[in-house]
C-alpha cells in the first residue's frame, strides 16, 4: 500500500486550511506588540496602523478580481455577502419591481435569502440547469420580465464545480438594467475574474475557500454604474454605511494575504490541480457504471463529483474512513432526500444517492490521489458485492421496471 499520512483531506470545497503564510500574517494583528488597534480609531497611531493594514488588504482583494478597492465591503463571509446583496438590492429597488431570477442549484445562502423575500411579497423564479449543470441562456432570457430587478447566479457551483457563463448573463442583465449578483465563493482564486470587463454589479467572496481564515468575506459593490443596496446591519456606519461593525483586522489581513497569494499562484496551481484531478478520474473511470456529475470541461480544476451506481454514498464514505470527502446522499435527514443540486441536473435519485464529491487543493499530493483511487475502487467493489441492486443489474433487470416498496 502507498505510504501516505492519513486521514487525507479531499473536501476543499467545504473549507480549506489557512495557508501558513496567511496564518503567520494574521498573528501579527492580535497581541499587545502587534497591530491590534481599531481601524476606526482615527485619533491615534494604533488605529492608523490598523487602518493601513485594512487598506492594503482591501487592495489585495480588489486586485484579484480587477476591481477598485472602494468597491469592496467586508462581511463575515459569503453567506452574509449573499444576504446583503440579494435582500439589499431587492429592497433598494422595490419601487421598480419585485421579481428575482436565480437557479435551483444555488447555495442555500442565496436560495434562503430568496425564500425570505418571497415571504415579504417578492416573486422568485428558480431556473433549472441543463443536464450538465449549466444555465441555458435562452431559458434565462425567457425568464426575465419588466419587473425583474435582480438576477443572482453563482459563478462556480460548490457541489459539482461547473462554471457558469457570467459574462454572457451579465451582458443581458446590463442591457435590461437589471442588477446582477454573482456568488463567487467557489471561484475567486480558482477562475480568472475581471470585473473591469464583466457586467457584474455585486459579487460575494469568502476567505476560507481559498486558504484564508473562516468568518471573513467581502461583497463587491460596483461604483460605475453605481449599484445601490440597502444595509442589513446597522450601527456605526462602517463600510460606507453598507455594513456596520468593527472591522476584524486580523481576519481582513488574512483574507487579503490569501487573495494576493491566489493571484500570484493561480495559474500554476490550476495546472497542478487539473493534472491531479485527471489522474483521479483516470484512476476510476474504467470501472463499470461510473458517472461524472456536471460538465467536465466547464469546471474548476479541483472538483470531481462522481456517482458509483448501485452503491450508496454514505456507506461508501464509511469505507473511505481515511479520506475526507462528501456525498450527495442524505440518509441522515428525515426526508431521505439526496442532494438538491444533483436532482436539479435531472439525475435520478439512485445516482444522486451514489455520489461522492472529491475536492482537492493546494496541499493535495500525487500520493494522496493514488491512495484515494486505490481505496475508492476497493470500497466500491466491496459494496457492490453487498448490493442487491448490483446483482439485479448484472442479471439484466431494469431497475426502473421494478415495483419498489417505497417507505
Amino acid at each position, binding site marked *: 500500500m502507498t505510504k501516505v499520512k492519513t486521514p487525507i483531506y479531499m473536501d476543499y470545497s467545504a473549507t480549506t486550511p489557512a495557508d501558513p503564510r496567511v496564518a503567520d500574517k494574521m498573528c501579527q494583528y492580535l497581541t499587545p506588540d502587534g497591530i491590534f488597534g481599531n481601524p476606526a480609531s482615527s485619533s491615534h497611531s494604533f488605529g492608523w496602523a490598523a487602518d493601513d493594514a485594512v487598506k492594503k488588504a482591501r487592495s489585495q482583494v480588489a486586485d484579484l478580481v480587477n476591481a477598485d478597492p472602494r468597491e469592496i465591503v467586508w462581511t463575515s463571509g459569503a453567506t452574509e455577502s449573499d444576504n446583503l446583496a440579494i435582500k439589499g438590492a431587492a429592497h433598494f429597488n422595490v419601487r421598480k419591481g419585485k421579481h428575482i431570477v436565480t437557479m435551483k442549484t444555488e447555495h442555500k445562502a442565496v436560495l434562503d435569502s430568496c425564500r425570505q423575500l418571497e415571504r415579504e411579497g417578492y416573486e422568485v423564479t428558480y431556473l433549472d440547469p441543463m443536464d450538465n449543470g449549466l444555465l441555458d441562456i435562452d431559458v434565462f432570457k425567457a425568464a426575465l420580465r419588466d419587473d425583474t430587478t435582480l438576477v443572482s447566479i453563482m459563478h462556480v457551483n460548490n457541489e459539482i464545480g461547473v462554471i457558469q457563463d457570467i459574462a454572457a448573463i451579465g451582458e443581458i442583465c446590463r442591457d435590461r438594467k437589471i442588477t446582477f449578483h454573482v456568488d463567487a465563493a467557489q471561484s475567486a482564486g480558482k477562475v480568472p475574474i475581471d470585473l473591469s470587463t464583466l457586467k457584474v454589479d455585486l459579487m460575494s467572496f469568502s476567505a476560507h475557500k481559498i486558504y484564508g481564515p473562516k468568518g471573513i468575506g467581502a461583497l463587491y459593490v460596483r461604483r460605475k454604474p453605481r449599484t445601490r443596496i440597502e444595509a442589513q446591519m446597522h450601527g456605526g456606519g462602517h463600510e460606507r454605511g453598507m455594513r456596520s461593525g468593527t472591522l476584524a483586522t486580523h481576519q481582513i489581513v488574512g483574507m487579503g494575504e490569501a487573495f494576493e497569494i491566489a493571484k500570484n499562484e493561480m495559474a500554476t496551481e490550476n495546472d497542478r490541480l487539473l493534472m491531479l484531478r485527471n489522474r483521479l478520474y483516470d484512476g476510476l473511470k474504467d470501472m463499470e457504471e461510473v458517472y461524472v456529475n456536471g460538465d467536465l470541461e466547464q469546471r474548476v480544476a479541483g472538483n470531481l463529483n462522481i456517482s458509483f451506481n*448501485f*452503491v*450508496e454514498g*454514505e*456507506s461508501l464514505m*464509511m469505507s473511505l474512513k481515511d479520506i475526507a470527502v462528501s456525498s450527495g*446522499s*442524505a*440518509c*441522515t*435527514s*428525515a426526508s*431521505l432526500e*439526496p442532494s438538491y443540486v444533483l436532482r436539479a441536473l435531472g439525475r*435520478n*435519485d*439512485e445516482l444522486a*444517492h451514489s455520489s461522492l464529491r472529491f475536492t482537492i487543493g493546494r496541499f493535495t499530493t500525487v500520493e494522496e490521489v493514488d491512495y484515494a483511487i486505490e481505496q475508492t475502487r476497493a470500497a466500491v467493489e466491496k459494496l457492490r*458485492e*453487498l*448490493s*442487491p*441492486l*448490483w*446483482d439485479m443489474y448484472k442479471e439484466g433487470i431494469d*431497475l426502473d421496471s421494478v415495483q*419498489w*416498496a*417505497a*417507505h
Partner: protein
Amino acid sequence: MAYSEKVIDHYENPRNVGAMDKDAKEVGTGMVGAPACGDVMKLQIKVGDDGVIEDAKFKTYGCGSAIASSSLLTEWVKGKSLDEVQAIKNTDIAEELELPPVKVHCSVLAEDAIKAAIADYQSKQQQ
C-alpha cells in the same frame, strides 16, 4: 456522524452476505426499500422441515446502519423458529446497534425485510 462500534463491526465484517435460490421452495425472500430512498434490503431464509431457519443471507444497498441492521438480523434468525423470528422487533435491532434516531428507519426496514421473507416462504408452502 459517529457510528457505534457494533455498527462498524457489522459493516466491516458483514455476516451471511450472499444469495440463495429464490425459486427454491424452502427459501423465503424479502426485498424492501427503494433505490430512490437510498436503501434496499434483500433478506433470504432457508427453512428446514421442522420449521426452523437453517440459513439466512442478505444483500443491502444503503448506509452503514442499514447494512449492519440486516447483517445482525441474519445472525439472530438462524436456528430460530418462524414464530420466534416474528417476535423480533425493530427496536431490538436499534437497541443492539445503538442506532441514533435518524437511523432507526434502517432497523424498521430490516424488520420489514424478515417479515416479507417469512410471508414469501409461507405463501410457497400453501401452493
